[in-house]
């Protein structure tokens, strides 16, 4: 029998394609809930801006719910803000959101430059939080995960997503220049997070979903950029794209993602057939099951995910802040007992 691994060893082994003692229940996506905010004393929106609070709330995922990782940040706006987009800070149950794109006018691209992640916007806040988490995580054998917005989504945030999609017809060269730029931003920021303690990077590119752009545009525009980012990092990358990504699982695997995180809309068994060389992450329904279901339903679905081939048991999308702790614990304790 295999010796028991630490949570960190387990996650890294699984992402490396090595055998592990059991599936992991690390969570590569947003973990914070209202109950965790209450117990840690670190609430949204403050925890998006204050490194200590960010670290405390991330740590609560382990402390209150036995999630086998700690992960920051809790939003998808750090990069867009660093590029000059105005951000609405949200509330205790709603995430920050981009209010205004900075690249509505094409000429503005020339005045944008890759921000220095050590001193621009909230990039240093996230890096500092990672540092604080690393100290605690070392003692507990927990992996530290940094979340980064993917280049297609970031391009949509700074340009306006509908305008960006129209650019794909009107001015393909411009679109490629925007994507090359956002890719450089992602690389610089991801490396900074790794240098400050992130052992795994989750790349989240919701706007690259095939439901929006289709599989061909994913392969020609979004995939190569994600590939470049993954290649530039010396830590494993978990790639999450929302929606039904069944058609692009091959691509996601080919571009080097060590973990492929799937939405609950994807059938885990079908994904397992297609994905042989990467770990599968997912895919408990975050709303119908985790938010509104009961513990029994959560465990039933968790069991089904594992039986169909999940390597890392996690929600199919970020955890909704009103999700009951009991429901999260239901699936993590199931995973801990495997």
């Amino acid at each position, binding site marked *: 029998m295999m010796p028991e691994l630490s949570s960190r060893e387990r996650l890294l082994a699984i992402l490396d394609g090595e055998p592990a003692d059991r599936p992991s229940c690390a969570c590569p996506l947003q973990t914070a809930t209202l109950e965790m905010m209450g117990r840690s004393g670190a609430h949204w929106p403050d925890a998006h801006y204050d490194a200590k609070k960010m670290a405390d709330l991330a740590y609560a995922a382990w402390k209150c719910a036995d999630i086998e990782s700690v992960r920051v940040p809790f939003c998808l706006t750090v990069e867009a803000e660093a590029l000059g987009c105005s951000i609405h800070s949200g509330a205790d149950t*709603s*995430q920050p*959101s981009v209010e205004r794109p900075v690249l509505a006018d094409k000429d503005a691209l020339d005045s944008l430059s890759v921000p220095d992640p050590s001193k621009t916007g909230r990039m240093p806040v996230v890096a500092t939080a990672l540092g604080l988490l690393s100290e605690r995580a070392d003692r507990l054998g927990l992996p530290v995960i940094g979340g980064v917005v993917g280049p297609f989504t970031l391009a949509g945030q700074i340009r306006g997503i*509908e305008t960006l999609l129209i650019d*794909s*017809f009107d001015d393909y060269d411009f679109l490629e220049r925007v994507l090359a730029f956002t890719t450089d931003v992602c690389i610089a920021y991801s490396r900074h997070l790794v240098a400050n303690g992130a052992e795994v990077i989750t790349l989240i590119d919701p706007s690259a979903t095939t439901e929006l752009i*289709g599989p061909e545009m994913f392969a020609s525009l979004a995939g190569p950029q994600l590939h470049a980012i993954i290649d530039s990092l010396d830590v494993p990358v978990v790639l999450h794209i929302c929606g039904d990504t069944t058609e692009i699982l091959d691509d996601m695997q080919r571009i080097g993602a060590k973990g492929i995180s799937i939405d609950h809309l994807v059938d885990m068994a079908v994904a397992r057939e297609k994905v042989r060389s990467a770990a599968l992450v997912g895919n408990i329904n975050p709303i*119908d099951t985790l*938010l509104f279901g009961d513990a029994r339903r959560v465990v039933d679905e968790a069991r089904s995910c594992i039986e169909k081939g999940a390597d890392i048991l996690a929600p199919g999308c970020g955890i*909704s802040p009103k999700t009951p702790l009991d429901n999260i614990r239901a699936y993590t304790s199931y995973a801990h007992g495997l």
Partner: protein
Amino acid sequence: MKKEDVYKKLTDAVVSGDEKLSTATAHDAISMELDAYECIQQGLNKGMQIVSDLYEQRKVFVPQILRSARAMNMAVEILKPHLEVDSKSSGTVVLGVVEGDIHDIGKNLVKLLCEAAGYTVVDLGKSVTKDAFVASIKESSPQVVGMSSLMTTSMVGMPDVIAAVREVDGNIKIIIGGGAVSQSYADTIGADGYADDAAKAVKLIGKLVGA
């Protein structure tokens, strides 16, 4: 050129997303003194419905819809001043993204396809409060209210909007959509329907208003 050929050219221009062809053909239609309403209905809207079907079959995606919508809208602008009477509407639909959520691309697609199908659309935009929904339905007396939410954090406000709308007019049909919600959520909160993409949403509206 026969008028059927003009209609077909308008349809083709929308399907291929060619705004030069759609606007040039709209000008041709006017110089031929064709009926502007028929040009929109038989030509442009038919094109948008074809695009909508192709989208539902996953043969085209959102960029193509946006491009086709632009080709259509630019031609509509040219034809509009020549509309003789108010064209008859299939019904009125109020649309909005619920409070706290700013992701409106799905709602915008529903609007485009609703208009192509002949509905009058009142677009309340994004992060729409319950009070704004109520004020709007009092003013425009719609047959259908559609609300969407992409974020799991904002969807929880939907039941309040439904209750408030029903209080004003119990006959209004309420539909929901967006990445955060599902048919089972629609059932739970007592919405009249759910659709998982814009093309299906328009069909659902047609069913609910008995069109």
